[in-house]
């Protein structure tokens, strides 16, 4: 018995010795990237995939050079489930804190899904002083919070679209619809969550200020699956445009109901199940005519901006299918490169130095030129050579996604659905 134990100890010692000698001498500590997000939502899942893609590319190219030392990057992810109805914000925050305490990330990427969780989580990020490059939650309240106390909240950045820039994109597209077809009567429909409510309310103001008539406005709780009553109201009232703002899977039903009821109004806004190329097959080709936004270029390829297409194709090659999310993956990919540049510039992983370097970012990336404003929001514009860019595409009747706005990226003109006539 005793000899058996002795053999076991000897075997273990040999194993440890082998492992120790096999390890590269003086291998530098890896850079840990924490991804606490709603990994059960398409946006979260694909954003994590995009982060992994960038990390793989960087590691293969030699890693991050911090103070003359090449360091590999590793990704640690946790599903905080804040996109699911019924998951309270404190539970999501516990997930973020657990990630920070257990995995000790040098930076957090992607971050909370819901704006509610982002706002509440900002104090945790500030407490542990971990740079965060968020890519999903969209509320501008976070920027106000950063500006109200920059020293405390300086660790938080947003690389993706926020509500005010989203409203600007919508405004530009609606203006084009007004000019081109004389459309000026709108019915607003949105999911009852902070970012969508904020968008719809901002757009309501925009419509009124720009001579549109707001026929109605309805908010749907997350999980609602029947949109017929509101579509009937819009049809009866003669709305020209159905403004939509949804990120729940059930919102795909809305498009099929719109098409089957032949509501003579153009559907324009954001419906997350409509964004990916797979939507055409998934919804039996019954989505032709829908105008949908892509929050960050790169989440779909562009004929006019090669880096976006390069990222999209790299993702497709690695994961075997194109992106479905119109929000999250491209800026998540970009975030890893932004962080790499900041770490190399700072020459240290010390948070304050990395934040200072991030603030000076000026990089031509997959979603356009990336620079941050005082609220640590990436600056948006309508030309990717000058700023980060979002776009609108339209599903054609033969199942293609065609970018129609902004003009710098447009691949074709907006068309009304076959059962709808111009208002002028």
């Amino acid at each position: 018995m005793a000899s058996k134990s002795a053999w076991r100890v000897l075997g273990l010692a040999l194993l440890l010795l082998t492992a120790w000698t096999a390890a590269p001498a003086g291998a530098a500590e890896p850079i840990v990237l924490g991804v606490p997000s709603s990994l059960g939502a398409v946006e979260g899942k694909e954003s994590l995939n995009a982060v992994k893609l960038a990390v793989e590319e960087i590691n293969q190219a030699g890693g991050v050079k911090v103070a003359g030392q090449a360091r590999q990057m590793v990704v640690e992810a946790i599903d905080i489930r804040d996109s699911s109805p019924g998951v309270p914000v404190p539970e999501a925050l516990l997930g973020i804190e657990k990630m920070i305490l257990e995995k000790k990330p040098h930076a957090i990427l992607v971050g909370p899904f819901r704006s509610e969780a982002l706002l509440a989580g900002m104090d945790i990020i500030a407490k542990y002083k971990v740079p965060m490059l968020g890519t999903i939650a969209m509320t501008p309240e976070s920027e106000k919070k950063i500006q109200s106390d920059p020293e405390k909240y300086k660790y938080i950045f947003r690389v993706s679209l926020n509500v005010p820039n989203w409203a600007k994109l919508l405004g530009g597209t609606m203006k084009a619809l007004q000019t081109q077809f004389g459309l000026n009567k709108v019915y607003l429909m949105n999911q009852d969550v902070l970012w969508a409510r904020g968008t719809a309310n901002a757009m309501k103001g925009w419509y009124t200020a720009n001579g549109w008539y707001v026929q109605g406005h309805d908010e749907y709780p997350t999980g609602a699956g029947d949109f017929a009553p509101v579509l009937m109201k819009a049809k009866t009232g003669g709305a020209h445009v159905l403004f939509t703002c949804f990120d729940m899977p059930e919102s795909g039903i809305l498009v099929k109901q719109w098409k089957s009821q032949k509501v003579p109004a153009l559907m324009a806004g954001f419906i997350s199940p409509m964004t990916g190329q797979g939507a055409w097959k998934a919804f039996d080709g019954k989505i032709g005519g829908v105008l949908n936004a892509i929050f960050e270029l790169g989440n779909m390829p562009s004929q006019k901006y090669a880096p976006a297409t390069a990222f999209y194709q790299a993702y497709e090659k690695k994961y075997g299918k194109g992106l479905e999310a119109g929000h999250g993956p491209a800026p998540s990919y970009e975030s890893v490169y932004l962080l790499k540049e900041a770490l190399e510039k700072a020459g240290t992983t010390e948070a304050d130095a990395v934040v200072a370097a991030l603030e000076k970012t000026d990089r031509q990336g997959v979603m356009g030129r990336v620079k941050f404003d005082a609220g640590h929001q990436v600056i948006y514009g309508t030309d990717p050579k000058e700023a980060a860019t979002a776009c609108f595409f339209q599903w054609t009747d033969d199942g293609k996604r065609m970018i129609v706005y902004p003009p710098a990226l447009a691949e074709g003109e907006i068309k009304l659905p076959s059962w709808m006539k111009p208002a002028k």
Partner: protein
Amino acid sequence: MLQGTIIYGFINSVMLLLVALGFNLTFGISGVANFAFGALYITAGFLAWIGLNTLGLPYWLAGPAAVFITAVLAGLLYRFVVLRVRGLVVSEVIATFGVGLAILELFRFLGFIGFEYTLPEMLDLEVSLAGVIVDGQRLAILLVGAGLTLFLWWFTRHTRTGRAFRAIAQDEHTALTLGINTERVATVSVAFGAAYAAVAALVILPLGTIAVNEGYHVLVNALAVCIVGGLGSTLGVVVASFMIGFAQTFTATYLDTSWMMVVSLLAILVILLARPSGLFGSQKQLEERI
């Protein structure tokens, strides 16, 4: 607009009826409130999807196979999990809810996340009813809803297993004395309820996408209808489905869409306060009278 509201209210009611029938059937016969019901509904959806897209089976095979496998899974759930805690109501609820949670989260863990998980429509057409355009899938829902309700009525009155269902629903101990194997019948009833959930999934899910969270919504809807109608009462389920279905659609049309989902929860609250055994429930009628 009123015609439209009535027609879509009717369709919404039949959808509620479809998801509640199976849940109610299981409870009425075996006395088990199957809280894994929503998970079984989603399981059927994903099984059909796998059959169609991964295995490349034709619909006439993938659909029935999904129903059959879901029913077998539910039967196994009863034999190997619920039977051990049978009669301990709280334990039954915890066990079935736990299994349901595990199934749903397993799908999430396995990567069944995305918008590509959709089922094909059964009827690809559009019909005008009183000037209101209704798509083929909603017509299919109406037909299947009516068919399943009539089949249940026929099955429980004109087949040996159906009569055994009714026997143990009325009095399990007396049924035992008459030579009915109550454990076997209860297992069949759980499987039967799951098959109803699976058929509901095959007709309702083509309207949108198959999402894990939908499993929780289905459970809440089934519970709401059964509590309002009276657990175990088929007539109660039919009446409650139409009450809640119409209330939801009228609320969305004439009040506010954000109140739509609150309607079913409000209905549960009102019924629990006014008549805890539901509109047609006989479970605790005596206690209520006292």
